[in-house]
């Protein structure tokens, strides 16, 4: 498993959302997506949360594939 810091970003309107996390803390990041999407004052919505969690899932999937090879 890679130990370097992972990063996901999303540009929406005038805002740039940047999520940096250590491998193994993915659940916390998904929790952060949910909290941000639930925050009415934020432009970040549940579409964005789904897109980023998808990207995170794909990254994990790729890493698992690399470990298998």
């Amino acid at each position, binding site marked *: 498993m890679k130990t370097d810091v992972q990063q996901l970003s999303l540009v929406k309107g005038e805002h740039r959302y940047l999520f940096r996390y250590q491998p193994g803390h993915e659940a916390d990041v998904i929790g952060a997506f949910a909290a941000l*999407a*639930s925050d009415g004052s934020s432009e970040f919505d*549940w*579409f964005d949360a789904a*897109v980023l969690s998808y990207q995170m899932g*794909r990254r994990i999937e790729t890493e698992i594939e690399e470990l298998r090879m």
Partner: protein
Amino acid sequence: MPVLPFRFQRTSASFAGLLVAAGCSQTKVERNDTHITRAFVSPVTIAVAPVLNFSGEFSLDPIAAADLLASELTYVEGVTVVPLNRVMAVLAGQGRTQVDSPAHALAVCEALGADAILVGGIMEYDAYTPTVGLILQMYEPNRPPPAAFDSLVDRRLALPFEASRMADPFSPTSQVQLVQNAAHEKVQKAVKKFADPRDEDETHLGWRQYLKVQSLFLRFCWNDALARLMKQERSRRLLLAGGARTEDPA
């Protein structure tokens, strides 16, 4: 189009069931293996929004992709599907061609008088392998608030984010994300199981045409996503009912 003969087959089977119920003799009732078990106790009406294209693939038609999703939704028991042209008419009235936020999706759903709306997003789209990555969310404008929340039930159902998500009226009631690569053996087996009962055109490719034709493969992907979504929806409704087992119609 394989869906038309299949719909006919399904109608025939339903009609045959009516005949049997009415006391008429029926020698053969074809079994329908492609339906998806419903998640709802009573019939519901669901609309489908034009698919959001996050893939960067310009050949993807969001309306055609949504049409496939709506078509697969007809295989879910207890669901009436709002025709896509009605959804498009509401969006056209707003000067839009797609939903641009969960709040907008809910507003469109209410304008249509539907119980829920599905919003699909295509994340990856490779027409040659083929490979499809997608997300599918369901939004309900008038969903019941979570009753007595039971953390023990929540943990048992393995839905760790359900409690916080249910509190937000703009959150999806359920969602799935998946990637299907037609080159993978596991996917091919699932496609065969899905396509065999539908393969009525009897082309030389047989069920394998669902691996070769992107629109057919996308149909398989939506069906798989819907099956997962309905499973999740059943769990959610079980949770809302406080873990009562009578809620699950499956």
